[in-house]
């Protein structure tokens, strides 16, 4: 449990929690309680089921290619942007007051174009270009934060407005043309390619580089930030009850604005990953089709983040991402042509609806999900 007693949800007072698991509870009842109230248990079970199901299909020859560990490992490259944006949503949703960030996809597009200019056209060194992109993302996110925390816009409206604005700027800034000069194309090698790990590489499949360069550092930093720093605990506090937080001398506005700035920062880093993955800075990278915000919010909800704020964990986001990525990877092999991506939509929608219904049920039956 990464949620300490200081950040316990206050909903328990109006609606007293049922007593904790007692010795009299039967074993099946305890298993069901664990599945329903501890999201990571449910996600872990689902991941095992999905992998087992597709492995059996693969062994029976029903898939177009084999669903083995090499394939699963290569598919993890799709987890990089998804999980990172999931963290962005986690921080923002945790901060409460209906927190949500619809603009992440548009920030990815716009920051990606800036990265394309800096690295691909102006010839900046890679690290400076990445720093600039991250800074641009932070500023774009901070604008959301100022609107929400200081002026009092509902988060949905503020980020809807900036979604439109950033999306439009990303297209206009280079006249709708993508940037794919030589340095940008070379980036593909350093993000999406799989590498063999030193020492243990012979025993496990090759893993995409982006996992180590971007995802793992983000996971560690976000976990440290949320679970081990004062700022992180303040985010939980304002999300749980912002009046109480203010009476505890927390600067609620600055903390909340910071959450949106962090979301922008992560989106800026995702922009770099996306440019590398596509080997091109595309003006519609983050908003084409369904955009990137929707899957990110889905992952956050699936990972057990309460949309009302104050409840949510890093591990939930990681497991939810892995579940979605491996489900999608299996679906891609199970259907030919366009049917694959279509069934991915179906799977995403069903997962989201059922996890939301499950959250509601667990809240009434057991008093909450952790």
């Amino acid at each position, binding site marked *: 449990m990464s949620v300490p007693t200081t950040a316990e949800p206050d909903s328990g007072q109006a609606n007293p929690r049922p007593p904790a698991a007692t010795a009299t509870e039967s074993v099946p009842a305890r298993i069901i309680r664990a599945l329903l109230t501890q999201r990571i248990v449910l996600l872990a079970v689902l991941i095992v089921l999905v992998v087992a199901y597709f492995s059996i299909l693969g062994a029976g020859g029903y898939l177009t290619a084999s669903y083995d560990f090499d394939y699963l490992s290569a598919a993890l490259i799709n987890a990089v942007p998804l999980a990172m944006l999931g963290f962005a949503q986690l921080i923002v949703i945790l901060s409460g007051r*209906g927190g*949500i960030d619809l603009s992440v996809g548009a920030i990815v597009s716009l920051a990606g174009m800036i990265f394309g200019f800096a690295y691909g056209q102006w010839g900046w060194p890679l690290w400076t270009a990445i720093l600039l992109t991250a800074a641009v993302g932070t500023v774009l996110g901070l604008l959301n934060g100022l*609107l929400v925390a200081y*002026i*009092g*816009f*509902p988060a*949905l*409206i*503020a980020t*809807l*407005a*900036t*979604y*439109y*604005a*950033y*999306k*439009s*700027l990303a*297209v*206009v800034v280079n*006249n*709708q043309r993508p940037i794919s000069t030589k340095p940008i194309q070379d980036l593909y090698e350093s993000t999406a390619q799989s590498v063999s790990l030193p020492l243990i590489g012979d025993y496990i499949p090759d893993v995409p580089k982006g996992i180590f360069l971007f995802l793992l550092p983000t996971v560690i930093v976000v976990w440290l930030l949320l679970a081990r720093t004062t700022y992180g605990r303040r985010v939980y506090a304002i999300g749980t009850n912002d009046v109480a937080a203010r009476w505890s001398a927390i600067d609620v506005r600055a903390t909340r604005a910071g959450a949106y700035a962090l979301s922008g920062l992560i989106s800026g880093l995702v922009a770099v990953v996306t440019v590398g993955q596509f080997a091109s800075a595309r003006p519609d990278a983050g908003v084409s*089709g*369904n955009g990137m915000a*929707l899957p990110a*919010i*889905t992952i956050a*909800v699936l990972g057990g983040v309460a*949309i*009302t704020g104050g409840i949510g964990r890093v591990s939930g986001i990681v497991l939810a991402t892995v579940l979605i990525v491996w489900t999608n990877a299996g679906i891609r092999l199970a259907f030919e*042509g*366009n049917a694959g991506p*279509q*069934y991915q*939509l*179906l799977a*995403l*929608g*069903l*997962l*989201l*609806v059922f996890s*939301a*219904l499950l*959250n*509601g049920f667990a809240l*009434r039956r057991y008093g909450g999900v952790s």
Partner: protein
Amino acid sequence: MSTATVHDQPPTSTKRQRILAPPVTGQEIVLLGVIAVLWLVLGFTTPAFMSAGSIQPLLGAVAPIALIGIGMTVVIITGGIDVSVGASIAVCSVIIAKLVLVQAGLGLPVAVITGIVVGGLLGLLNGALIAYGRVHAIIITFGTANLFLWLSLKLFNSSTVNNIPDTLAALGNGSAGRTAGVPNSFLITVVLVALAWVYLRHTAGGRHFYAIGGDQLAAQLAGVKVRQRILIAYLLTGLLVGLASCIVVAQGSNLGQNVGTGKELAVIAAVVIGGTSITGGRGSVLGTVLGALLVQTVASGVTQLGWRSELSDLFVGVAIIIAVGADLIRERARRKR
């Protein structure tokens, strides 16, 4: 509720206090002013703007957004939201265009009724999940948006629908779709908006939506059938999506797989620009129509000025910030008084 008797007033108060919001709110007057200024400026700078050939498609494009906006206004007044309307448009449109018009070759009444029934079913699913599953509306509708999108792509079967017969011409952009120079689709919208305006403002049923958005628990204790009302709000949105889809199909002889993409955000933008509070309890359909008109005017103006059409999204974003920001500031001033 609409009749405030003198006895209700505190004896010291000399000013008659309102219970209902004024028929036309400040936000709506400002919107009207902004739209008037925009039309005048565009009329002077680009002569083509004030021609019938430019205004008629503009009104035709406002119609579906404003129609769905009626339902979305009711949904948002209850404190909810529906982000699945874009995907619902895709489902209704492809069923109307592909199954009813191209494959079965049926007439206009069947097409319209099919659209409304299908839209209603989709709305009913949303409403049932939200009202009885007691889950946050935004989460559920994000989920059903994916499901509806899958359904529509399945029906499209990886190809656009071509050679749609002009059965729905009465709702389209051609001369058959106009009465006295005004597109029929816009006239239908005006009539339905007027009905919704009266219903929301002057009937008990309509006021229940505001009561739920203001304080759901208080509404329940006051005897409002909260769940049933919420279900009705989403059902209504679905029915209107079905009708709007007929107008969308009538626009041309082809239907692409991306029909409806981004429409949910356009509708929500129109509603919030129109002054409806996203937290519920306050809003009007008149504002929504004006919001839709403003967004479409900006889009049309940007194209006519020869700018990149994507630039209109930037102005829509800025318009949302200004409209909602002004509302927030006024709300703060109201609370101080």
